[in-house]
């Protein structure tokens, strides 16, 4: 007994001596560490390490097995049957089986204030076939389901822990992921430890610490001083400087997001299609990429980022066309207010847009309001034009459907077009990606012609790492996965 204790203690000491800690600097303190309640992008950075998902994404956004070893889609796209990995356990020892998957999905669909309700709206029923088989039945075919399950909606929580903790689960999250939640101190750190019995092998590092640095300069200073080994994102202005510093690496890879300008089509002046087309024609996407973003964004002409399955391979990025803009205006003056959030980048962007509009004789007044107010006014359609983007989803549907169908929650323009509605609904039910893409292209042609929204650019994911850090994969969803990361 005594000997065993000494052995355990020695091992423990050896373990601490070689303990590898990676500290990650984020741009915000993740608000909610509960996959059901989370509504912030930054939460996903941490949630992804603690919780396994049914399926995951690879670098090419292909859906790959995770907790589900395999799956079958039958019954005309209405039934999804998942075969789960055997012998997986949650961090608290609860077995991860079909019943736990059913519990988690139903929790996502029913918990008060769940952020997942909308994502799982198409689900009719979840059935436990046997301990390793779970079956999801849909109300109608919904092709984006696997994409949705590769994110928070597919994260499986420990039923025992969730039931015990109740509302407090977000402060003591228990999943089956490569790292276990250890502690959190608000605005200071979230500490995770390696899950030694992870089904896919123990992580190479022992400890993963997340720290929030809302200021870009402060985030960078902490990387430079060695206090953190990874930061995301890096401010555009700092990227070229980082590139020249040989103690650090910059990963700059495509993401899923898009950014641009909404037009409120429900009132003047942008209830006129010609006015919208005129403004859109003044925009020089190359200049935006170069001036504001130091070429860390890709010019856009649609919602699907380059490298993603639905990206239009040979899409033409429109060049600014001032004669066309003037012709669309027909000699009439156009004056409007451009609503934007505060901050260095939004300010630069708004001023650049303002200058571009001015070249065609269009006058824009910039109004800056804080982000919550901006969203609120967007909902109430209390604006003329609005600078707002979307962080992006792996399945194309998540980047277009809720934005342009009539009455959809993110349809800030108040846009409504029966043909577009029909096309976007049709794409959801099509099973092959190529036929879906074809449908999207038709819908997008219509949207780009009527311009309720001008797509301007896709933002890249920019991650700074210390030289000795290896194993981070550039997965377009922008979530850093630390299971295979090592620090020398």
């Amino acid at each position, binding site marked *: 007994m005594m000997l065993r204790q000494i052995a355990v203690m020695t091992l423990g000491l050896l373990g601490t001596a070689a303990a590898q800690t990676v500290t990650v600097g984020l741009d915000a303190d993740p608000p909610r560490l509960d996959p059901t309640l989370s509504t912030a992008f930054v939460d996903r950075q941490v949630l992804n390490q603690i919780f396994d998902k049914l399926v995951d994404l690879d670098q090419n956004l292909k859906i790959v097995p995770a907790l589900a070893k395999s799956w079958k889609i039958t019954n005309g796209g209405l039934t999804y049957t998942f075969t789960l990995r055997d012998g997986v356990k949650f961090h608290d020892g609860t077995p991860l089986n079909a019943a736990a998957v059913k519990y988690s999905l139903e929790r996502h669909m029913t918990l008060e204030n769940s952020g997942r309700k909308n994502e799982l709206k198409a689900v009719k029923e979840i059935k436990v076939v046997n301990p390793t088989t779970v079956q999801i039945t849909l109300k109608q075919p919904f092709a984006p389901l696997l994409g949705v399950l590769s994110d928070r909606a597919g994260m499986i929580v420990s039923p025992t822990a969730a039931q015990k903790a109740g509302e407090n689960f977000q402060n003591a999250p228990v999943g089956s992921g490569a790292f276990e939640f250890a502690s959190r101190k608000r605005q200071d750190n979230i500490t995770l430890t390696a899950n030694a019995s992870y089904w896919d092998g123990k992580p190479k590092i022992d400890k993963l610490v997340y720290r929030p640095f*809302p200021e870009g300069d402060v985030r960078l200073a902490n990387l430079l*001083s060695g206090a953190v080994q990874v930061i995301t994102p890096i401010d555009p202005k700092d990227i070229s400087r980082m590139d020249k510093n040989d103690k650090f690496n910059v990963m700059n890879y495509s993401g899923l997001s898009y950014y641009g300008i909404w037009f409120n089509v429900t009132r003047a002046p942008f209830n006129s299609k010609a006015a919208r087309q005129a403004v859109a024609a003044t925009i020089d996407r190359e200049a935006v990429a170069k001036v504001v973003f130091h070429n860390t964004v890709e010019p856009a002409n649609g919602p699907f980022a380059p490298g993603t399955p639905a990206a239009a391979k040979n899409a033409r990025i429109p060049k600014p066309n001032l004669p066309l803009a003037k012709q669309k205006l027909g000699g009439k003056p156009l004056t409007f207010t451009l609503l934007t959030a505060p901050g260095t980048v939004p300010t630069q962007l708004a001023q650049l847009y303002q200058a571009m509009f001015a070249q065609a004789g269009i006058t824009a007044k910039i109004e800056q309001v804080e982000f919550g107010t901006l969203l609120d006014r967007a909902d109430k359609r209390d604006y003329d034009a609005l600078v707002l983007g979307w962080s992006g989803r792996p399945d194309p549907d998540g980047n277009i459907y809720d934005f342009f169908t009539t009455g959809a929650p993110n349809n800030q323009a108040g846009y409504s077009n029966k043909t577009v509605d029909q096309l976007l609904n049709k794409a959801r039910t099509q099973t092959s990606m190529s036929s879906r893409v074809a449908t999207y292209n038709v819908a997008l042609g219509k949207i780009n012609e009527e311009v309720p929204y001008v797509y301007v650019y896709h933002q890249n994911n920019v991650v700074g790492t210390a030289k000795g850090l290896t194993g981070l994969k550039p997965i377009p969803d922008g979530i850093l996965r630390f299971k295979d990361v090592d620090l020398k």
Partner: protein
Amino acid sequence: MLVFALRRLLSTLPTLLIVTLVVFAMVNLLPGDPARLLLGEEATPEALAELRRSLGLDRPLPEQYLRWLMDVIQLDFGTSVKDNTTVTSLVAEKLPTTMQLAGFSMLIALVIAIPAGILGALRRGTWVDQVLTLMALSGISLPNFFLGILLIYVFSIRLAWIPASGYVSFFEDPGKNLLLLLLPAVTLGVHSAAVLARYLRGSLIETLFQDYVRTAHAKGVSGPRVTFKHALRNALIPVVTAFGLQLGGLLGGAVITEQIFSVPGFGRLLVDAVFTRDLPVIQGVVLVSAIAVFIVSFLVDMMYAALDPRIRYQ
């Protein structure tokens, strides 16, 4: 003295009530919808309505205020909308950090300000005084964020002596705690030091010309004894006020400095709460800061009364 203390305490009650009203009104008059901000870009109308209902945001404002006030009187500041922690426990978690930072800063301020102020007063008009004045003016005019980033650049990035940010509690590792708080404390302390040194210099010069000082000199009391025993005590009275104001301000959370050095104190809690429109946390933090200022100014008044007995009989 006791009567004075009690009277002083009672007179703060109506003011505190007004503070609660102002805090509540201020927070609720802010544009923007907390539910919308919490749910972010992903919100659906149903989810928004559900959240508003569960936050009580659909109730009339007077009703919301009364409910909040009743809870506050029972020291229940509500629950953070963001992560379901009670505001009381958040305050309890952050306040000691901010108090330590404020105390540390004021200590640095005093260590600089007292000798500088005395020296400036005694050597008024000489080059020593001019140099000190210049330093004090730079200290007052240098913005915190600039000084903070400058210190990080020099001591964390160039020299790599002190980590750029972070925090461990004093009880966990006292040495590391003080090391990590050093740069933010200096950032805040320099500013306070400059203010206090100016006050002390001015007040000491004035006192040195008082009759009783001259009398003391005439009676043959030694120079340093007059300065330190007789003049300084009286000269400190206005400095105590300035000290109280500075300390009160710091207890309310040194917002920018805490942000730059990632110190998890009151200031960061407040900034984060404002960004996420976490109303209960904003209200709680502002109210607790106000109470802290009241307590400090109460203590200052008490010290005043102790330093100058005339005050307590007025």
